[in-house]
C-alpha cells in the first residue's frame, strides 16, 4: 500500500497549506527535494513550531508564498541566507508566531474548535503584526483579564519523516506527539518512513502507544535516510560536511542555484 516519493509529492498541489515539523522531529527532506523538482508553487508553510533547512530550500527555490512559524533556524549553520533574502525582498509573506501558539492553533483544529485562548504574548510585537490573533476578555474573570485567542490552524496536508510504518497504513512516531497533533489537525497526512514492518503496529501495546492510525494517513512512502542531510532522531546524525557546503553555496542566489542543480534537480532517488 506504499507509494513512491514522486507519487507522494504529486498529492501536494499548488497552494497547499503544508504543515512540517521542526528539524528534531523528523523532516521529509527527500520528499522536499521531489517537491522542488515537481516545481510546486504558492505553498503556505506552517512550521511546527519552527522550521529549518526544509523551508530554507523551499523558499530559495521559489515554492513558498506564506511562511507561518515561530522561527526559521539552521541552528549552528545560521544565518539562513535564502530566507533572509526573501524577507528583505518581501518575496514571501510572513506570519510570525510563537511556538505554543502554533501548537495551540493546531490543537484547536484537532478539537474542531474555532480558537484556543492562550496566556502570555500580550505586549509582544508579534500581536501587532499577526493577521489572525485577537485579544479577548476571559469570560470567567470578574476583573479586566485580557487573553489572546489563537484561531485554529488547519493545514491541508502534514508532511514528515517517521521511523516505521506497517502494511495497514499505520505510522509509528513514538514520543514525537506534535506529529499526532499535526496529523489530526490536518485534512490529511503524507509520510515518508525508514522502513515498513511486517506486523501490525497496533498489535503490540508497546508500539501502539506511539502510532498514528491509518485513518489519518493519506499516503506512505518508503524512503530510507529520508531526512538526509538533517539528523533523524531514530537514525543517522546530520551530515555536517554537506550542511557546511550548503552554508557556503547558499550565500548567493547563483550558488544556491548550483546547489539545487547538483543536489536536487540532477538526483532522483526514487
Amino acid at each position, binding site marked *: 500500500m506504499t507509494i513512491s516519493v514522486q507519487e507522494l509529492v504529486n498529492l501536494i498541489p499548488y497552494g497547499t497549506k503544508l504543515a512540517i*515539523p*521542526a528539524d*528534531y*522531529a523528523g523532516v521529509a527532506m527527500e520528499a522536499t527535494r521531489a517537491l522542488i523538482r515537481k516545481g510546486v508553487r504558492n505553498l503556505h508553510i506552517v512550521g*511546527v*513550531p*519552527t522550521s529549518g533547512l526544509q523551508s530554507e530550500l523551499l523558499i530559495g527555490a521559489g515554492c513558498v508564498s506564506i511562511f507561518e*512559524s*515561530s*522561527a*526559521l*533556524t539552521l*541552528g*549552528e549553520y*545560521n*544565518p*539562513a541566507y535564502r*530566507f*533572509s533574502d526573501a*524577507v*528583505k525582498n*518581501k518575496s514571501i509573506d*510572513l506570519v*510570525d*508566531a*510563537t*511556538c*505554543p*501558539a502554533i*501548537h495551540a492553533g493546531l*490543537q484547536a483544529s484537532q478539537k474542531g474548535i474555532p480558537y484556543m485562548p*492562550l*496566556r*502570555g*504574548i*500580550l*505586549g*509582544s*510585537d*508579534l500581536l501587532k*503584526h499577526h493577521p489572525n490573533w485577537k485579544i479577548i476578555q476571559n469570560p470567567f474573570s470578574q*476583573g*479586566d*483579564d*485580557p*487573553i489572546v485567542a489563537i484561531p485554529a490552524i488547519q493545514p491541508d496536508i502534514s508532511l514528515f519523516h517517521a521511523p516505521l510504518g506497517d502494511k495497514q497504513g499505520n505510522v509509528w512516531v513514538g*514520543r*514525537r*506527539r*506534535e*506529529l*499526532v*497533533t499535526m496529523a489530526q489537525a490536518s485534512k490529511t497526512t503524507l509520510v515518508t518512513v525508514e522502513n515498513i514492518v511486517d506486523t501490525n503496529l497496533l498489535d503490540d501495546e508497546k508500539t501502539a502507544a506511539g502510532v498514528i492510525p491509518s485513518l489519518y494517513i493519506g499516503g506512505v512512502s518508503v524512503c530510507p535516510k529520508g531526512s538526509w542531510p538533517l539528523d533523524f*532522531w531514530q537514525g543517522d546524525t546530520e551530515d555536517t560536511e554537506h550542511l557546511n557546503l550548503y552554508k557556503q553555496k547558499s550565500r548567493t542566489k547563483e550558488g544556491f542555484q548550483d546547489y539545487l542543480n547538483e543536489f536536487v534537480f540532477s538526483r532522483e532517488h526514487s
Partner: protein
Amino acid sequence: MSTVAEKRALICFIAALLKGCNHVAVGASSPIPGTAALLAKEAWDSPRHVNILGSVKNNFLTNGGQELFDCAAQGRIDAFFLGGGQIDGQANINLMGRGEYPSCEPRWPGTFGSAYLYFLIPKVILFREEHSKRVLVDKVDFISAPGTSDENIYRKGGPYGLLTNKAFFRFQKEKARFHLEFIHPSSSLEDILDNTGFEFDYKANTLITADPDPELLKLLDNKVSSKVKEVYPQFSHSIFKRD
C-alpha cells in the same frame, strides 16, 4: 582570564543561580546553561529535573513539542534561559531582527517560545555572552517578549537577571530596570558603562564576581564532563582538557 576559564566561571555562576529549583529546562543550543544545570544537579541534586530540549537522551518530556509550554503553564518549570539579538534596559528582548519589521536586516530566526515562556517561568535568566552596545540597547527594535507587564496581565514569571561575559545584572521588577550586581574579574565598571546601551542602577563599589569554587570545578571535570560530552560534543571538546 582565558576564554575557557571564563566559560567555566560562567557555568559555575549559573549553577549557583539554579540551586533551589526543582525543574530547569534548557534549549538545545545553550551549552553553557545546559552544562550549568547538569552541574547544579550533580552538586546539590537541585534542580532535581534537568531537561535539555532537542536532545533525545536528556529530555524526559514524552508528550510532544507542546509539553514544554504546557509544563511551564502548569508552573512545573522553575528556571529557563533566554537570549536575544537585542536586550534593552527594561528587559525586553528581540529575537526577530534589526530594523523595521517585517523587512528586518538582518532577520534573525524568530521569536520561538519566548513570547510565552517569559510570562510563565518564574526565573528566566537572560544570557548573552556578547556585552556590547549592539546587543544591550536602549530600546529593542522589535519586542519579541516584554520584560514587564501591566498589573492586569496574567504573568507568573519574567526576567530574574542578565548574565554576560562582563557582568551580572539583577532585574528589579518594580522599577523595570536592571541593577548591576557583579562585575566579572576581566571587566570593570568603566568597561561596562562603555559597552552597555541602556541605563542601569549601580553602586560605585559593585562587587567583583567571586572566582568559581574549586570543588565545583572539580565536580565539573570529574562527574559532569561525560554527560556534557553526550549532549554538547563540540562544546565539551572546548572546555574540558582530557578530551
